[in-house]
């Protein structure tokens, strides 16, 4: 079915349109009368194209820059992670070397300290810090994962001196009673004076009671305190500290405070001399 009814097409409007067109065409082709208008429209078109091209170019540059920035950021993060990993590895390697060095040093010192005795280096498991700082019980625990046969009452050393002796074993842990424990008694020698130094219940401090045979002038503050070896636990003549102060308790009794050299807080590895 036809969509429209056939109607008459008036020619006048078309003739008029054609005449106007011809006139415009004639004037434009021969006299360039409309060239400014045409030029302006062309200029607008060219400017539009340039603007579009510039906009697209800038957008592409922006996206490219953004992409580059993202890539750089990702690379930066990756490099930072790698650097952190390298730093961590180096740190661990250095620490491992330090620990190994400490252990070797300690082993060497144990050999010197222990004479004929066998030395075992063990790592600390726990330290009763609260009790150590306030109270009379000064105990630390050492790990014994290889289950060395460690007997009770074996000397425990750090650095170049002793700090205590083994007292108990619990599973794979070895309990060490420090010199400063109030229940510990250590036979010592100070400038010819032999006495039993009892733990003061304070960090790195032991006390010795001297009988009336000695006078205050016989002992100087700062004198070296050595193990006497009389208890049968520690080898003799190992420096364990210095005389800190001397008090006269009564007419016939002196109290000598001894500052211990060995500080258990400074070390993670401890050596035990086992066997005799």
């Amino acid at each position, binding site marked *: 079915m*036809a969509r*429209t009814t*056939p*109607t008459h*097409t008036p*020619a006048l*409007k*078309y003739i*008029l*349109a*054609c005449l*106007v*067109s*011809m*006139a*415009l*065409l*004639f*004037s*434009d*082709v021969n006299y360039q009368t*409309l060239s400014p*208008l*045409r030029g302006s*429209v*062309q200029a607008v*078109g060219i400017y539009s194209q340039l603007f579009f091209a510039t906009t697209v170019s800038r957008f592409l540059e922006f996206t490219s820059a953004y992409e580059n920035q993202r890539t750089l950021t990702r690379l930066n993060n990756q490099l930072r992670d790698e650097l952190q990993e390298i730093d961590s590895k180096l740190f661990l390697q250095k620490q491992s070397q330090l620990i190994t060095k400490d252990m070797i040093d300690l082993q060497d010192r144990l050999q010197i300290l222990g004479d004929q005795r066998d030395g075992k280096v063990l790592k600390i498991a726990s330290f009763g810090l609260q009790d150590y700082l306030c109270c009379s019980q000064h105990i630390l625990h050492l790990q014994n994962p290889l289950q060395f046969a460690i007997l009770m009452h074996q000397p425990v050393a750090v650095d170049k001196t002793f700090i205590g002796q083994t007292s108990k074993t619990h599973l794979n842990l070895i309990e060490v009673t420090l010199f400063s424990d109030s229940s510990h008694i250590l036979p010592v020698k100070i400038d010819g004076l032999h006495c039993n130094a009892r733990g003061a219940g304070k960090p790195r401090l032991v006390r010795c009671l001297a009988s009336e045979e000695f006078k205050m002038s016989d002992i100087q503050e700062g004198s070296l305190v050595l193990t006497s070896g009389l208890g049968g636990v520690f080898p003799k003549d190992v420096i364990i500290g210095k005389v800190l102060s001397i008090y006269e308790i009564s007419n016939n009794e002196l109290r000598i405070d001894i500052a211990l050299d060995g500080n258990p807080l400074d070390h993670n590895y401890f050596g035990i001399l086992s066997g005799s």
Partner: protein
Amino acid sequence: MKFTSHLFIFGTIFSGFWLDSLIAEFNIRTYIAALESLPYLVETSLGFLILCYWIYAIPEKIQSSAAFCYGLLVDLCFGSAIGFNMLFFSGISYVIHVYVFRFRIFSYLQLIIFFAGSSMFYVACKYLIFSPENYSYLLLLCSFLINGLLWLPIYFCMRSLRRSFL
């Protein structure tokens, strides 16, 4: 007819002329690069054929004023001498309006011959007015054949667009 419909129709005509300019640019590049010794033969009239389709399809909606305005806009947009496309758009619009119902009973081949001939006439006038030294009958013959081949794709493509959007 709504303004948006006119805008849509002009958009298709504009696209046709834009494609014509792209093809011409491509042809010139190819001609310069590879076929320098051969005459320049390819001249498409996609925009003109698209306008012919719209007048043929909806003659009651595209009157002389619409054809006149489309021609003016195409002249302005594509830098032709003002009046050239106005003249031919108005002229072909009148011819199609007069014979539109006769065209409806034409076969595709007859339509191809008529519209290819119209576009050949358009190309011939263009060359005669603006570039008479390059005018050649071989070019017109090639143009006739190419535009004849292009008519059916344009016809079906524009018909689908008309059914979808108008």
